[in-house]
């Protein structure tokens, strides 16, 4: 018989190797810094968002991350004898500033600025997208900026200039899903006939011609 694990936490990794994860997380944490009092990207689990995105929707950027992190750590090892995430916050900031000015060599076809911009964009996404994507843990990102999330709607009073919405309870997609189950009458139901089913089942989208043996890719 097998026994249940001590923990079912989900801080494992789907794409990054250990050092890569620490490097990316350190970068995210300098973009939106935080601590337990005033959480930032690290506390909100932005790394988990990026890691999951890279093994799914963003798989085409896997190479850019892998190469970029390698190049960055090569640079910091030469300069400081340490990997990026082992440096002090001040040292990390100095390096990020240099990346932004595109002064860090070795990024091949890309540039250190483009690499940083990519991580910057994905950090923002992980901070403020619905928690279902793996970041924005406990809606920390939304709490930080006062965004109430996936609200069904707002009242006239809530839309008054200067109204105080700080007591409004945040809703996530999980909450809307529950609402849709419990009260489908709150949502739209299109009346009238449905289109006839095609004579053969043809799900999906028009597919490009395939080379023999090539796997079926997403249509769009």
């Amino acid at each position, binding site marked *: 018989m097998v026994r249940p694990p001590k923990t079912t936490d989900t801080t494992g990794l789907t794409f990054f190797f250990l050092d890569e994860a620490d490097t990316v997380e350190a970068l995210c944490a*300098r*973009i*939106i810094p935080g601590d337990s009092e005033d959480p930032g990207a690290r506390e909100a689990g932005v790394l988990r968002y990026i890691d999951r995105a890279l093994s799914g*929707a*963003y798989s085409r950027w896997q190479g*850019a991350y892998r190469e970029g992190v390698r190049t960055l750590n090569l640079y910091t090892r030469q300069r400081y004898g340490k990997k990026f995430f082992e440096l002090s916050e001040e040292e990390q*900031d100095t390096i*990020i500033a240099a990346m*932004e000015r595109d002064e860090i060599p070795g990024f091949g076809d890309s540039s250190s600025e483009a690499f940083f*911009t*990519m991580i*910057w*964009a994905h950090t*923002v*996404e992980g901070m*403020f*997208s*619905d928690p279902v*994507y793996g970041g924005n843990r406990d809606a920390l990102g939304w709490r*930080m*900026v*006062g*965004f*109430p*999330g*996936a*609200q*069904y*709607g*707002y009242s006239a009073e*809530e*839309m*008054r*200039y200067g*109204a105080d*919405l700080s007591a409004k309870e945040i*809703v996530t*997609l999980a909450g*809307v*899903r529950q609402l*849709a189950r419990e009260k*489908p009458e709150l*949502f*739209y139901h*299109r009346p*009238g*006939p*449905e*289109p*006839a089913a095609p004579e053969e089942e*043809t*799900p*999906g*989208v*028009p*597919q*490009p*011609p*395939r080379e023999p043996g090539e796997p079926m890719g997403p249509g*769009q």
Partner: protein
Amino acid sequence: MPNKHADVLIVGLGASGAILARELTEAGFTVLGIDKGPYYHSDDFWLKFDELRYSVRAGLSPTMDTDPITWRPNARTGAQICPWAVGPLPLNPLWLPPSVGVGGGSIHWACWSWRQLREDFRQRTEWVSRYGEDALPEGSHIVDWPITYDDLEPHYERVEYEIGVSGRAGNVGGEIREGGNPFEAPRKRPYRFPPLRPSAANKPFVEATRKLGYHPFPAPAAILSEVWRERKACTYCGFCRDYGCHVGAKSNTLDTMIPPALATGNLELLTNCRVQRVNVDAEGLARSVSYVDAKGELREASGDLVILSAYSLENTRLMLVSGLNKNGMVGKRFTIHNYGWFSGTLPEETHVYAGPAVAGWAIDDTNADFIDRSELGFLGGTPIMFFGGDYQPIEIANNLPPDIPRWGQGFKDWLKHVNRHFFAMFSQMATLPMETNFVDLDPKVKDKWGQPALRITHDWGENDRKAGLWLNRIKHDIAREMGATKTWEAPLLPPYHITTHEMGTHIMGTDPGESVVDPFCRSHEVPNLFLVGGGVFPTYNGYNPTETIQAIAFWTAEHIKRETENGGVLTRFTTNRERLIG
């Protein structure tokens, strides 16, 4: 399997194609509607409150993977796949082609729904009489439309009453109404529904513009402010532009036009089928279209009349791929909007995530020539529109003022502040139809199915720069009057060259040498082929185009119904018509 045939083949059932589908099926025509995207069910949008999926990843838009478009600033430069639409940064559905699926762009649009001004139908006459022939820049092709506001007036009304538009009329039968747009052309009836509830920060915008002597009014919105049949009133959820609606309040053609068309029994939908070309027979008539079905098989379908309503750019690509460009006018007169984004912060909390964008008001004093352009040195006009709501945190973070740090504590502090106090306004300065701005087929880049990509050759010009400077001055005045604590602007000449407002490229006109379609959207070259959409606009103006595109779809449907009866000009193509009416 034998080829499918119908009286009318419609390629693309979007904002305009679905109108033709309903009008013609109700008139007794059999219609085969082919769309490259899916048929969405209403519960597909119940969980749409997801900025990442629908805005950042443009969940309802075609992307450059399946629908590549290339761009170059001028004919001397090599083209590349639209650089603003590829890469690891967020996509913006406004810089992509608008739609994939039945309902097209009307599903996830922002719902600004305008009638054009009288003046917009006759720019040449207006500008020459005011500023003289010399004011028209060299290399421009500014013409009057072959149709007038009065031609379209009843059809605008049909859009507003049958699809559903909310607003406050400013001119009913020549009588100016308090609180509406005093500049609008006279309408027979007011809007179908009262205006939407304005968004929070709209109040200071209205006060400021009034104080400055302008005439603010609620922007006309294709959104229900009240319940209508099965569709509910807007709940002001604020996931509107880029999103489907969870309560059916957004007026799209999927909900308003397709169900009655299906109810006739005359509409067959072929979804997830991508049309690749129009096949013309020896007599020069459109006989069929070739399409790739959902399984990847190449098929053919035929119709007595063929209508292309696959969006201006795709209509144009289909024409060019099919070799239909005898007079060389297909692809010419390409015009787009410069949105002139202007952002700021206000002292009070603005809750800019609540309400649709179109719940902001607008001023039209800056449109057309209501302010004389003689001393300003540019042509054209635009309303200035307050962006009511519809801003979520990822978009706000990406709209960073140049003096705010992009990372670190300063960035974090900014995010906390800006999300609570943000506001935005924008304008829509149209480019002039210049000889140097056009689209054609890219000689190298192809889509996954081996079809050449469309190539855009477009750059902003002097007119766009001067207009932008003038508009920024006015926006600054308004922001100052609103009490803005900070403001910043998008670049005067933006980096994008797709705006979901692509007009021209198959323009209408009476001269078969100088236009692609006649005033009823019928091809000069192939007499049983129609091209519907913004592509027919010979010139562009300051308004979002869709209500006009839809009014023209109703107008074209009227024409087809009229001319297939009693010896009309289309009877010679419609072989089965008698049987079907009887």
